[in-house]
């Protein structure tokens, strides 16, 4: 081996702790990229595989009437239609531990011939009879049940009956049941009839044969089928065309993972800045050696290549450690996300592009970052190299600082420490940048986490009710509201109404983006007394409803499109009829689907059901979960006595928990990233302080020779570290404000379609101050010890 390469190896091994620290700084970033990108690639692929394996319906037509087998066959042979199936979906209630929870019952035409919106068998029988059902695997924990158990189910028009779970299935098209706090079951039409529902199939699921990823083409074809249904005397209520081929959570997941990947690249860049500062210092430390090598014939290219090679070895060590570990972390991450999205990972392989990106970024980013100091150091003239005696005199900034009157209020040690901190301005800037960026990301993660919690709490602030009960049929409110109001602990009861809706455009039919779970992408009209005491809307523009019986509407952010403005007319379908409304305001709702608020009197006028309601909202004296549980049971009993059939009953705390569960893993991941940033930031500080001290070894020797005690030198070095640390905290705080705003905007938009409120977490600031202070102290104490261990003679002769 050539002597120059031996030098590279020995330089690396002679200060292995420092070089390992550099490798660690790179490894942290590469690890982050690999784990996030690996999980991203697997989830992205598996989400598509899982979702498409269910043969999702391109469109669903909601109809009223009867589609005969013959008509179904005609639809199947319709041009552009590949598959067609009849279905029905009923929202019922199930009894779990003496409490009622919502359950979605998916009614299947023929379990043995399912071709659209299929589910995958997990265990047990896959062909339930009229007394049994299949259950989605994620629903079993919510139902507190196992295969073979019987569950009490009550449909809107039936009595509570026990239904046996005969098999488990996996339906990747549905969000996990625990997330929605609901049960999912699959039953036959006969079973539905046995449960007391007289209804027939009311959904026609279609799959198109071509242009299957074009929503407009799918809509056109579904409309043609709807036309056919109409000619057969069947009423078409709605056409649902969810985003083609896309899992309900796909865009959100992609967006979140993209931003995480960007964060990881930022970590790598910060790690690389640390590498650059370290390499710059190495060049300073080896400046005489460079001078000597140039004297004996080494040219700038040869010398630069030695240091680039050294960096390459560090990068390779970082990659060797981080790539396998990142694969393990990716496994953990995508497993968590798979649970969150109800996915079954069929192929765990991480594409080769991920390690390739890790290798490329793990080498090129540090190389680019370190290129300037390495090239500059290698190009130094022999004379400059041989004449170098370490750090230069006090910089202008330090002189300026020392002239500030406030500085003179401190003792000599502090003043000297302050000046020392500013002597290597470029390095100080990089270290401050590194620490500040780490701190900013740390604070951002906690700020966003706190903003998320705060936003979730707005669910309670906006919803002054504790229970929402949807009824099967419209009933006269006079008969029931008074009874409920008379219950002890009930403070307010209001009768509301609701209906699913869509913006009527030129289409003949109501076309929505609703997914088959009826939740994702749905849009409802909520009719309420304008002086409601149970809603505290956040008005973002315009005003709230104040007159009954007008054609005024207030839309929430999910119902609003970019072109809508105050004063515009909007056409909403209501019970299959187009209705005209004037937009008077926009609200920002947390945890709602798209909603249009209108006065209940206007609603009554349009459907002719005066004083009739289909929804009850109740406020209790105590907003706790347990209190709500007990009161709900009392309300249930009252409704049973009055023979009022309930379609669904949702406590607000359940909604809160369901929304919280959606993003929990992702907010936690942000916190994990914050910890990585803290690690890189502290490494940067340690590196800077130890290099600052190393460079001044000779100077420290001089100080000791003229009487500075080891204690004095130690406090000088520690104060220098603390000065840098404290400066970085101020910078980190300022940067975190912008970053928190951006992240809050991003996460808020993808989850609520409204930004999270900018929140400053005091806990984050306190923790970061502690990390930086302790980190600065620890980072300084080792170099300080080293400076005191070396003898004055050694220090003075140090080159």
């Amino acid at each position, binding site marked *: 081996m*050539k*002597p*120059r390469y*031996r*030098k590279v190896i*020995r*330089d690396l091994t*002679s200060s292995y702790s420092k070089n390992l620290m550099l490798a660690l700084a790179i490894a942290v970033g590469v690890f982050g990229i690999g784990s996030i990108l690996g999980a991203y690639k697997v989830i992205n692929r598996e989400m598509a595989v899982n979702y498409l394996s269910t043969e999702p319906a391109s469109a669903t037509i909601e109809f009223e009437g009867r589609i005969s087998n013959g008509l179904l066959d005609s639809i199947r042979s319709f041009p552009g239609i590949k598959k067609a199936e009849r279905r029905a979906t009923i929202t019922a209630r199930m009894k779990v531990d003496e409490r009622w929870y919502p359950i979605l019952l998916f009614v299947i035409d023929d379990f043995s011939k399912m071709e659209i919106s299929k589910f995958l068998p997990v265990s047990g029988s896959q062909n339930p009879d009229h007394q049994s059902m299949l259950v989605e695997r994620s629903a079993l924990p919510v139902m507190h049940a196992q295969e073979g158990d019987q569950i009490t189910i009550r449909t809107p028009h039936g009595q509570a009956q026990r239904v046996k779970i005969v098999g488990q299935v996996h339906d990747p098209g549905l969000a996990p049941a625990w997330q929605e706090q609901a049960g999912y079951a699959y039953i036959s039409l006969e079973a539905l009839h046995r449960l007391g529902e007289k209804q027939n199939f009311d959904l026609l699921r279609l799959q198109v044969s071509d242009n299957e990823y074009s929503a407009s083409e799918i809509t056109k074809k579904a409309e043609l089928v709807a036309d056919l249904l109409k000619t057969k005397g069947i009423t078409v209520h709605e056409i649902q065309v969810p985003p083609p081929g896309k899992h309900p959570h796909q865009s959100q997941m992609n967006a979140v993972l993209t931003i995480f990947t960007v964060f990881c690249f930022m970590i790598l860049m910060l790690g690389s800045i640390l590498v650059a500062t370290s390499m710059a210092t190495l060049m300073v430390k080896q400046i*005489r*050696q460079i*001078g*000597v*090598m*140039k*004297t*004996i*014939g*080494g*040219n*700038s*290219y*040869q010398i630069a290549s030695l240091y680039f090679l050294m960096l390459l070895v560090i990068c390779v060590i970082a990659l060797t450690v981080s790539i396998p570990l990142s694969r393990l972390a990716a496994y953990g991450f995508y497993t968590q996300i798979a649970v969150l999205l109800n996915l079954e990972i069929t192929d765990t392989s991480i594409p080769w592009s991920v390690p390739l990106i890790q290798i490329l970024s793990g080498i090129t980013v540090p190389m680019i970052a370190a290129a300037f100091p390495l090239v500059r150091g290698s*190009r130094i*003239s*022999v*004379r400059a190299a*041989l004449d170098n005696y370490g750090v230069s005199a006090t910089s202008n900034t330090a002189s300026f600082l020392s002239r500030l009157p406030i500085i003179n209020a401190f003792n000599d040690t502090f003043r000297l420490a302050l000046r020392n901190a500013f002597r290597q301005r470029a390095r100080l800037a990089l270290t401050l940048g590194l620490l500040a960026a780490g701190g900013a990301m740390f604070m951002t993660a906690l700020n966003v986490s706190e903003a998320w919690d705060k936003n979730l709490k707005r669910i309670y602030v906006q919803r002054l009710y504790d229970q929402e009960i949807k009824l099967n049929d419209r009933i006269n409110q006079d008969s029931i509201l008074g009874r409920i109001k008379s219950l002890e602990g009930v403070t307010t009861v209001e009768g509301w109404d609701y209906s699913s809706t869509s913006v009527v455009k030129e289409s003949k039919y109501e076309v929505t983006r609703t997914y088959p779970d009826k939740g994702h992408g749905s849009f409802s009209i909520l009719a309420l007394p304008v002086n409601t005491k149970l809603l505290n809307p956040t008005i973002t523009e315009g005003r709230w409803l104040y007159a009954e019986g007008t054609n005024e509407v207030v839309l929430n952010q999910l119902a609003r499109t970019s072109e809508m403005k105050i004063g515009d007319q909007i056409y909403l379908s209501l019970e299959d009829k187009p209705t005209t409304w004037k937009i008077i305001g926009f609200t920002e709702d947390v945890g709602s689907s798209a909603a249009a608020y209108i006065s209940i009197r206007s609603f009554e006028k349009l459907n002719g059901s005066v004083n009739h309601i289909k929804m009850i909202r109740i406020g209790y004296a105590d907003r706790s979960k347990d209190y709500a549980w007990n009161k709900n049971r009392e309300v249930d009993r009252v409704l049973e006595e009055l023979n009022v059939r309930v379609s669904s009953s949702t406590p607000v705390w359940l909604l809160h928990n369901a929304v919280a569960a959606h993003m929990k893993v992702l907010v936690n991941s942000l916190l994990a990233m914050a910890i990585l940033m803290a690690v890189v930031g502290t490494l940067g500080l340690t590196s800077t302080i130890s290099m600052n001290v190393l460079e001044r070894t000779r100077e420290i020797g001089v100080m000791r020779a003229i009487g500075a005690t080891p204690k004095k030198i130690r406090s000088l070095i520690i104060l220098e570290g603390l000065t840098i640390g404290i400066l970085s905290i101020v910078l980190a705080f300022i940067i975190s404000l912008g970053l928190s705003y951006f992240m809050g905007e991003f996460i808020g938009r993808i989850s609520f379609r409204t930004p999270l409120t900018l929140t400053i977490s005091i806990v984050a600031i306190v923790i970061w101050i502690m990390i930086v202070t302790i980190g600065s102290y620890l980072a300084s104490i080792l170099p300080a010890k080293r400076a005191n261990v070396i003898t004055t003679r050694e220090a003075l002769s140090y*080159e």
Partner: protein
Amino acid sequence: MDHQQSKPLIELSQVTKSYPVASGSFSALKNITLKIDSRQLISITGKSGSGKSTLLNLITGIDRPTEGSVIINGVRVDKLSEFELASWRGKNVGVVFQFFQLLPTLTILENVMLPMDFCNTYPKKDRRERALALLQMVGIGEQAEKFPSTLSGGQQQRVAIARALANDPPLIVADEPTGNLDSQTATAIFELFAKLATSGKTVVVVTHEREFSSYFESTINIADGVIVKAAAVQV
């Protein structure tokens, strides 16, 4: 010695070297003209700050003159780029420093092999053998696999001399090579230099130590940037 017979190895013509200082400009060397023939052991003497190290730096191409020309072994050194200079220096000048300046993470042998590696002067397979031979020549062949820190100052300086000879340059320059050594070791080093001059090298040594003046064929004495006395060299 008849120096008129051959072309001088070192030729400085009206060389001035100035440095910018706060008060304007400081001339370390003032209009110096100097010719040194091959195969000589020459000393440069003078007080601290007189300009002797600057003169040495100009000869080795470590520094460039503000005015005038520096020709070494027929090459106009002051016109070479830094890149060209590195290669030229490696092949034509062997430099010995006061503090030895051996690379601490290379063994003695590797330190001596390094110039051959950088300048690609000898076939790879021959470099080790040549380095060993040079170490034998300076008397420390048995220490070849040791690291510099394990050797005494005198031994390290011998290694530095072996390294200076690695590419067989015609010129060896040494800046106070015995400044850090005891007199016995210093004597040994000067004897080595004398032997090198005898073997055909030109050796230029900056030194303060008058007790070794007998080793030198010529002495250039500098004061305030001007050559005040030069024996057996053309001024």
